[in-house]
């Protein structure tokens, strides 16, 4: 009876064989059902029925949030594997698998979300098989995302292969680690920056405070911040819900990961803040700061770049893990806001406010649906496969 109530309170809601009617599962179930309903509408009635997109705003939150923010937040995979395998920070090793898994799921969901957004989803391979629009930054993004998704998939395979007991295949996949890590960093550098470069084409539409020749660098650097923060954020949540799945190594290294990644994030945020300020200076945009958009820009610059930078630093100095965890949430939120600013809020700034875009509830519904699917798959995997712990057969094999 006491175990039953533990299930219901949701402290450890994922004990296999127990009742599936937890509050989490019920909410997730409703979201999935609504999501499937909107999906049917979307693919039978068209974009017009489920979105508020129009000819001035061809891109809505499915691009601004699902694609731009989604790809940035999935940067944890390349950031962590680079730190551990290339820079040799072996003490973060236990963070690699969850980070790669989150990265893979993130990218898979981005591609999934794109099927909703583009007019003819079944033509998504056309840039590769029909005509290559090589002058488009979007071609670059598409190629890199497709390749990187493959890289992440292979990087992910050791866990399920260990779970299934395919030793030989698992060892081959592990042997490719270094190669895949370097490929992953190259591809990530390219498409993270190219997502920013998408908007280089539209200087007349994006507000000058956000439009900058530095856009690709801004997007790349902030993706590192997003990646580091997401690893901390995700590990906090995992620890809350899947503590029983974590082995001793993971538990022991967890604090070090939070401190190390928090320190790195603070440093990168400091650099990001610097180049953002330089960005204002090189285009001489100081006078825009006194406008309404300027105030919003300052909220982003001070509240979501300088503040998390400072809070991370204090958290690391004082070894205050709680502060670091909350700051990771703030930093992640800051990156999401930045992507929405570039893609939606500061985009078409010249248009009168009645022509501005606000998402249809069904667009938000699909975004929530996709995030929920991600969480459900993550839960399915970590409760079964050696993600948060090492498989007993492969201990010390790295």
């Amino acid at each position, binding site marked *: 009876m006491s175990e039953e109530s533990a299930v219901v309170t949701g402290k450890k809601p994922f004990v296999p064989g127990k009742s599936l009617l937890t509050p989490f599962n019920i909410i997730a179930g409703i979201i999935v059902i609504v999501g499937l309903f909107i999906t049917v509408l979307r693919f039978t009635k068209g974009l017009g029925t489920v979105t508020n997109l129009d000819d001035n705003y061809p891109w809505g939150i499915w691009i601004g949030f699902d694609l731009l923010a989604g790809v940035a937040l999935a940067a944890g995979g390349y950031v962590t594997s680079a730190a551990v395998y290339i820079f040799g920070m072996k003490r973060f090793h236990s963070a690699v698998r969850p980070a790669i898994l989150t990265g893979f799921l993130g990218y898979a969901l981005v591609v999934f979300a794109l099927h909703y957004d583009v007019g003819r989803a079944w033509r998504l391979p056309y840039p590769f098989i029909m005509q290559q629009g090589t002058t488009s930054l979007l071609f670059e993004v598409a190629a890199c995302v497709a390749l990187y998704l493959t890289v992440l998939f292979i990087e992910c395979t050791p866990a399920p292969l260990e779970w299934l007991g395919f030793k030989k295949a698992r060892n081959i996949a592990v042997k490719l680690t270094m190669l895949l890590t370097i490929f992953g960093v190259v591809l990530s550098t390219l498409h993270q920056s190219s997502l*920013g470069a998408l908007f280089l084409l539209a200087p007349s539409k994006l507000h000058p405070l956000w439009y900058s020749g530095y856009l690709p660098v801004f997007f790349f650097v902030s993706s590192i911040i997003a990646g580091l923060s997401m690893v901390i954020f995700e590990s906090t949540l995992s620890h809350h819900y899947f503590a029983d799945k974590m082995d001793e190594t993971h538990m022991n290294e967890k604090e070090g990961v939070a401190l190390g990644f928090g320190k790195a994030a603070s440093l990168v945020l400091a650099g990001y803040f610097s180049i953002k300020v330089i960005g204002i200076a090189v285009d001489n945009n100081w006078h825009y700061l006194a406008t309404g958009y300027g105030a919003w820009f300052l909220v982003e610059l001070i509240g979501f770049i300088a503040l998390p930078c400072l809070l991370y630093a204090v958290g690391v100095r004082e070894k205050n893990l709680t502060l670091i965890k909350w700051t990771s949430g703030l930093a992640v939120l800051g990156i999401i806001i930045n992507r929405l600013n570039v893609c939606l809020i500061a985009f078409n700034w010249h248009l009168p406010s009645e022509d501005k875009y606000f998402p249809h509830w069904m667009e938000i519904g699909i975004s929530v649906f996709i995030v929920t699917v991600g969480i459900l798959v993550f839960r399915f995997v970590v409760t079964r496969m050696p993600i948060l712990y090492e498989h007993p057969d492969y201990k010390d094999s790295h």
Partner: protein
Amino acid sequence: MSISRRKFLGWLGAAGMGTALGSTANAASNKHFSGYPDSVGVLHDISRCVGCRSCEAACNKVNELPPPDQPFTDLSVLDTKRRTTPEAHTVVNKHELAKTPVFNKIQCNHCLEPACASACFVSAFKKTAEGPVSYDASVCVGCRYCMVACPFEVPTYEYNKAFTPRVMKCTMCYPRIMEGKLPGCVEVCPKEALTFGKRDDLLKVARKRIEKHPDRYIDHIYGEKEMGGTSWLYLSDVPFADIGMREDLGVTSAPQLTAGALSGVPLVVGLWPVLLTGIYAMTKRKEKISQEETAEAVSLAIAETEEKGAEKLSAALKKAEKDKDMAIQKEVKKALEEVKKTFEEARTQEETQEEQKEEKA
């Protein structure tokens, strides 16, 4: 903002680093692309337009678009600001200015360096040698990046089609031009506000008109340089900004805006693996050295301990030997003494026995 700086920044940005100076930011270096010779265009003299909407009607008919909610003869439509839609490739807007209403016609400007073509990742848009910018719906994925890219806000999308949505925009009546006919709107214009011809000739015509009536026209041919130039050109007797035409677009063409970022891509591909492998090799070497150093230190410590141990051992052995000798000597002495004692005891006993014998006898 100067072109070169913008390009430089973009290039720097995409490269993600500040090194490798000296390479040129422009993809085409100093080569200048002046567009297809003899390509055609249309000159729109805004001062001549009366807002009759005949061009809209002709466009609708020529392109076989669905009939509008209100007939084209209904001029009250002009009271609200409109933009192009999937059902209307061209729209006329009325602007109530001080003197009289001024009308401007919106449609695809057919850029010399189309932003839509630059943006399209399946290369569905193409600047044709004849002048029009064509669109191929058979490869279009529907990402709508072209609509984001277009500085004139022209392309529209068939959001309400579930299976075959297309980007819709003016084609400059490309098929008709190829047949030697005029574009629908030009043919029907009652005021000759629209002039069709080779772009180069149209520029000359426009300049002549400005020269002839300097008091009437604004001394600017809109479209000659905007965003790298357009095939559709405009003359006006009121400032272009007053009739909703943006004058802040700059003269940099779309491909120039992205050339920097695009040329950064192969740099990253070429140099990032070198850098990363280098860092990896250094990390590995460091690890190896530190491993070797640890191993050396351990073996040294072991050797020292062994040496000390050996000394101790030999000392102990020596001591033991000494002790042993002493012990032996002691034992021998003890044994001898014991033997002596026993012997003496035996002798005394013998003596006593003999004494007793003697006494008995």
